């Protein structure tokens, strides 16, 4: 894992000191809320329905056990004993007092963490594949490239007041586990015909009210021009992205309005100019970063588990991913217990996960965009011992990628922008599908719930998506089908008129029945939908 050197640490410390001063001026009243707002936003502090919310950055979703432990302690000390893992691989605390914010940031900086650029119109925390460095199918570990981009994008002098927020994702396998093409910039590390490693760039993806899939804008950027090319992409956006309407300000609108080819032309022109400006970090920097992500000392061992306990066998089948070393797997810790709040973990659970990471996973954890936690390198021989402890702590739900493994945004329970509640809906759905045993029959089914059009819950990319809307002051839910955020990215389509809370749960039951009746061998819900189209689902829902 990457470790700060004195320079990285000094950058974060400088920011904490600056923020402490700003918070003091606010509390003393010399800064008005209007003046303070952009400053606190740059430090991840939002004012929500009931309290301040603090968003902590977890760069490319990777953290060590000391950091996870500290997150648990902060949850107990400053929040109500829990935190919420988000779709951007970050952590949110929902019950923060302004007086405590600077102390929390100081506690975070002791373990090389911060809340910098987790909000505001700047380049946000960079996300990546949660199985990076572990998965059998990756070309290389994408995280050194993500770390290079993290440093470049931290406190960037030119790109701190962009038209709108800017999200970058870096992956390095054909399988996309990070919704790469739904980011403002998606980077895939690839190998060209000459066998050289480089970066393929996508730009202009996003969700929100106008979801778009990013087109590819360059097939191959050599590694010693990676930052320069990114700089050119951002400069064109900073200069020409729309600022007249905040709903049209994301780069997806620029790319869409200019057309992909014209955007590419402008970027190439700027890139050609930038190449002479000496903005690329020395090539040695990438080489310095790489060893931090070197493989731990894997040892040979058994390749199979004892399957005599069916509950354990089910968990292994559902919640583990093939590792590049055959005596290991990556184990997913589900934060979706039946009837629970998707993505929430208590302080005790965080400390337990920290302990287990130390014991079984070379001190490393990952946050998934599906709001779960991964222990990336677990010996197959240790799986049973690990599972036993997870089970005892309510962390052993065997439901990865099932309908119970849903994404849900905070919704009306916390969020000031919400139209409808997401959390209670998620809880009821998981209880119902668990009780009826249908979860098992449905196999992979990605359900995603957002409480409003901003789409924090990725509903556009759900095999089944639910969107909370406001209908004459009543909470109402729109259902959509056919989205995917994997390498076969697609956007879900709305079925028709919306439903009440009870109605939408019935509707999900109905569409899953259509699937079960129509599916052919080995088809997932998504495959069946793509084959038979919307009509049979519509007929069953509204016919």
């Amino acid at each position: 894992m990457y470790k700060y050197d004195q320079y990285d640490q000094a950058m974060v410390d400088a920011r904490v000191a600056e923020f402490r001063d700003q918070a003091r001026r606010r509390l003393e009243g010399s800064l008005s809320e209007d003046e303070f707002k952009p400053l606190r936003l740059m430090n991840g502090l939002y004012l929500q329905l009931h309290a301040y919310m603090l968003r902590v950055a977890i760069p490319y979703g990777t953290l060590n056990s000391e950091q996870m432990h500290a997150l648990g302690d902060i949850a107990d000390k400053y929040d109500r004993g829990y935190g919420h893992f988000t779709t951007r691989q970050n952590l949110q605390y929902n019950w923060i007092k302004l007086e405590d914010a600077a102390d929390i940031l100081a506690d975070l900086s002791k373990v090389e963490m911060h809340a910098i650029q987790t909000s505001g119109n700047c380049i946000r925390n960079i996300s990546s594949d949660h199985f990076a460095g572990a998965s059998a199918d990756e070309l290389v570990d994408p995280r050194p490239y993500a770390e290079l981009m993290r440093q470049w994008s931290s406190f960037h002098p030119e790109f701190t007041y962009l038209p709108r927020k800017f999200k970058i994702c870096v992956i390095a396998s054909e399988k996309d586990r990070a919704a790469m093409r739904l980011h403002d910039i998606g980077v895939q590390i690839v190998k060209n015909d000459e066998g050289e490693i480089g970066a393929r760039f996508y730009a202009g993806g996003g969700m929100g009210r106008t979801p778009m899939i990013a087109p590819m804008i360059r097939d191959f950027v050599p590694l010693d021009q990676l930052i320069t090319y990114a700089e050119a992409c951002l400069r064109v956006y900073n200069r020409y992205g729309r600022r007249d309407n905040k709903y049209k300000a994301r780069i997806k609108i620029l790319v869409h309005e200019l057309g992909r080819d014209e955007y590419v032309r402008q970027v190439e022109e700027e890139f050609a100019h930038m190449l002479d400006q000496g903005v690329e970090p020395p090539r040695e920097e990438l080489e310095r970063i790489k060893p931090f992500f070197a493989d731990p000392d894997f040892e040979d061992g058994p390749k199979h588990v004892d399957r005599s306990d069916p509950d354990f066998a089910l968990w292994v089948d559902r919640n583990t991913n093939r590792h590049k070393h055959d005596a290991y797997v990556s184990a997913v810790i589900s934060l979706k217990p039946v009837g629970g709040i998707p993505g929430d973990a208590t302080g005790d659970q965080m400390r337990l996960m920290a302990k287990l990471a130390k014991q079984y996973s070379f001190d490393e954890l990952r946050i998934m965009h599906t709001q779960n936690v991964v222990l990336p390198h677990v010996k197959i021989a240790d799986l049973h011992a690990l599972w036993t402890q997870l089970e005892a702590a309510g962390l052993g739900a065997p439901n990865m990628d099932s309908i119970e493994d849903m994404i849900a945004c905070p919704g009306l329970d916390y969020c000031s922008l919400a139209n409808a509640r997401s959390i209670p809906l998620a809880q009821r759905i998981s209880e119902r599908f668990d009780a009826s045993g249908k979860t098992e029959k449905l196999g992979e089914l990605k359900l995603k719930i957002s409480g409003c059009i901003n789409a924090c819950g990725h509903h556009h990319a759900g095999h089944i998506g639910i969107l909370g809307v406001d209908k004459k002051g009543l909470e109402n839910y729109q259902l959509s089908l056919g989205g995917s955020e994997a390498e076969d990215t697609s956007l879900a389509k709305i079925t028709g008129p919306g439903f009440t809370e009870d109605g939408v749960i019935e509707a999900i039951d109905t569409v899953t029945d259509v699937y079960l009746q129509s599916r052919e061998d080995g088809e997932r819900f998504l495959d069946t939908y793509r084959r038979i189209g919307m009509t049979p689902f519509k007929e069953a829902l509204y016919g």
Partner: protein
Amino acid sequence: MDNVLGTSPDDVQFRFRDDEVVDHAAVTVDSCCDQTNATAVRIEPGDDARVLLPFLDRLALIEVNFPSFGDGRGYSSARILREAGFTGELRAVGDVGIDQLSHMRRCGFDAFAPDKPLNEEDATRAFATWENVYQASVDNRRTIPQIRHGVNPKARS
């Protein structure tokens, strides 16, 4: 009305140059391209700084206006001008606050005329926010990656 555009030397609160403060009324970018004698110009957020490149030699002052601090186009304008070799005064004017100063400086601004005068102490601290920096920019500071590997900033062509 070109003659009322621009800030006067009295408005300049911070300046990092030793030459005489430029005291000419600035003209708009459009007039600057038409008028061969203008020596000071004012860029608005929507202007393309690159149309000024043919005239840089005769310009002593370029003002970049920030009607609202959240509109960051002026940062790109400033850097583009410095990248093109502009050595005259680059003045940030308008809604310029304490928390923008350090980044503006890095993008090549060397004079600041905020609408509302800033607290001097806060500003001094703000200019010194970053002991070191990650990105290479037109201020030619040696970056953290360059320090780590013992190399010097690349000369810009």
